[in-house]
């Protein structure tokens, strides 16, 4: 026996926090490092088209990770999370859009906001925080619901906010697009944001909050009998996932350089949900894998939609093939592998 100072023995609290850091770091790294490697390979090929595909895919990783924080742990399928992307995107536009053009697009912005030059990173943080705050307020009422009732209520949130933003001309330019957002979202910015989203989702999952919400997911009555306040736990997850989805919206706007209300609508809702279902509803690994897989699949089909020349002939798939193939993939997953590609697996986690 030696008397050397072993931190694990000298202080149980220090040992516990070391253990906890490991429980966060290992699974996050197991997701982030492969993404990093993929990005380096793509950057080395130097193909700008490939780089932009990957950037967009990483933005979807952020959106789907946000979705997964709530859906994965609560078991409630949310049809309303794109609302938070919408809120985030517009809130960032209010702070950073297009110099003097800002008042032309959004004439009713208060003067201090119309002239503010918020640093881009801070603007993104504030915009995502607003999305999280709106989630908190909505959640106070909505998180009393469970199961299908909650899903339908969340769908109605999507409708309400779309209508509101489309008619709130002075702040949102109504149904027309706002163009000229600074396009700072490069491959590396998107990778950084995806890493942050993965870290937040992992932190939540391994925390006692995540555990308690999963207990509610498994059996709400038994969770309540175990002292868990189901409403509080759902609300915590909903707020955090609103924040991350809001961040995804911010990135999307600054990736395309333009936003409109119709971008954050049913297409994006079902695409992100399809990504989560394909990967695995109850796993963060599933969220990341699903987002990348579906994004890659869509790109492949789009190549066919544009047409491939074989000899003298142009092989061309009709427009809309993308949606049909996506639907077929989704249905096949639901029929043959309803737990998703990765199921319950979390990479880097010891069970």
């Amino acid at each position, binding site marked *: 026996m030696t008397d050397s100072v072993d931190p694990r023995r000298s202080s149980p609290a220090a040992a516990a926090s070391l253990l906890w850091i490991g429980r966060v770091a290992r699974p996050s790294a197991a997701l982030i490092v492969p993404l990093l490697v993929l990005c380096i390979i793509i950057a080395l090929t130097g193909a700008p088209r490939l780089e932009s595909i990957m950037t967009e895919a990483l933005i979807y990783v952020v959106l789907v990770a946000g979705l997964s924080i709530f859906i994965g742990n609560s078991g409630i399928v949310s049809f309303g999370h794109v609302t938070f992307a919408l809120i985030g995107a517009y809130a960032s536009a209010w702070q950073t859009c297009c110099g003097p053009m800002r008042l032309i697009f959004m004439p009713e912005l208060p003067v201090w906001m119309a002239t503010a030059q918020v640093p881009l990173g801070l603007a993104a943080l504030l915009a995502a925080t607003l999305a999280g705050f709106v989630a908190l307020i909505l959640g106070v009422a909505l998180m009393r619901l469970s199961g299908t009732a909650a899903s339908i209520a969340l769908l109605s949130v999507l409708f309400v906010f779309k209508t509101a933003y489309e008619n709130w001309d002075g702040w949102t330019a109504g149904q027309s697009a706002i163009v000229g957002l600074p396009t700072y979202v490069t491959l590396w910015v998107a990778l950084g944001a995806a890493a942050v989203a993965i870290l937040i989702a992992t932190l939540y999952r391994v925390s*006692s909050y995540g555990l308690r919400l*999963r207990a509610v997911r498994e059996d709400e009555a038994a969770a309540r*009998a175990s*002292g868990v306040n189901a409403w509080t736990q759902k609300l915590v997850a909903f707020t955090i996932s609103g924040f991350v989805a809001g961040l995804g919206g911010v990135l999307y706007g600054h990736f395309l350089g333009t936003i409109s209300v119709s971008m954050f609508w049913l297409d994006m809702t079902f695409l992100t949900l399809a990504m989560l279902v394909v990967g695995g509803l109850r796993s963060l690994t599933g969220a990341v894998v699903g987002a990348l897989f579906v994004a890659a699949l869509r790109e492949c089909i789009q190549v066919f939609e544009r047409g491939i020349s074989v000899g003298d002939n142009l092989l061309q798939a009709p427009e809309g093939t993308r949606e049909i193939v996506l639907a077929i993939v989704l249905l096949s997953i639901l029929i043959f592998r309803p737990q998703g590609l990765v199921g319950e697996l979390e990479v880097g986690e010891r*069970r």
Partner: protein
Amino acid sequence: MSARLTTQSVTVRFHGLTALEDVSISLDQGEILGLLGPNGAGKTTLVNVLSGFTRPSGGTVKVNEIDLTRARPDVLARRGIVRTFQSVRLFQRMTVRENVQVPVFAHHAGSVEGEQAAQRALEFVGLAEESDRIAGSLPYTQERLVGIARALALEPKFLMLDEPAAGMNDVEGAQLVELIARIPAQYGCGVLLIEHNMPVVMAVCERLHVLRGGRTLASGPREEIRRNPDVIESYLGGH
């Protein structure tokens, strides 16, 4: 200080149907009270009232002088009034340890003492070895034991066990009796035991409360109940 859980004239009606009428019981910390009665007598309804899942149409639930009639289930659980379910209701896709950690985290968020409480509860029911298994993969008897450990992890003052021995064979039942009998000494809590199996009840309960048709039929020490002609006629009949 020793606490006492009481109901006073609890009545529960569902759409004109009376499930419980004027039922008064009391449970002291440290004792085991048996709750008997044929199917439909209102035993589970009474547990639902005590654990906050059903609000009574009349009457009160108190711990000492504190009225808890309208408290939510999670609040009651954190205050030490804890139940198990007849159908167990484990968190199926979580490990045994996680199942027992849920109440611990609900009580004192993630502290070292909390981890120890979870470990103690698993050791008490003899399932410390199985703590990494997925709850849904456990055999039936062990499932029931995890249910009990999950309740004990809250370190209850009052524990209500809703037919813990249901579906067990005689040997398993006997082991469970031995376990339940040790709960008051180990955890200092009062136990309300709902059970059909008469040998189990007679073995561990000093005091019994018998319900029939939602009303109290008899209440008192074990020997008295055993000789009570009403009880013998209506419930212990064929035995």
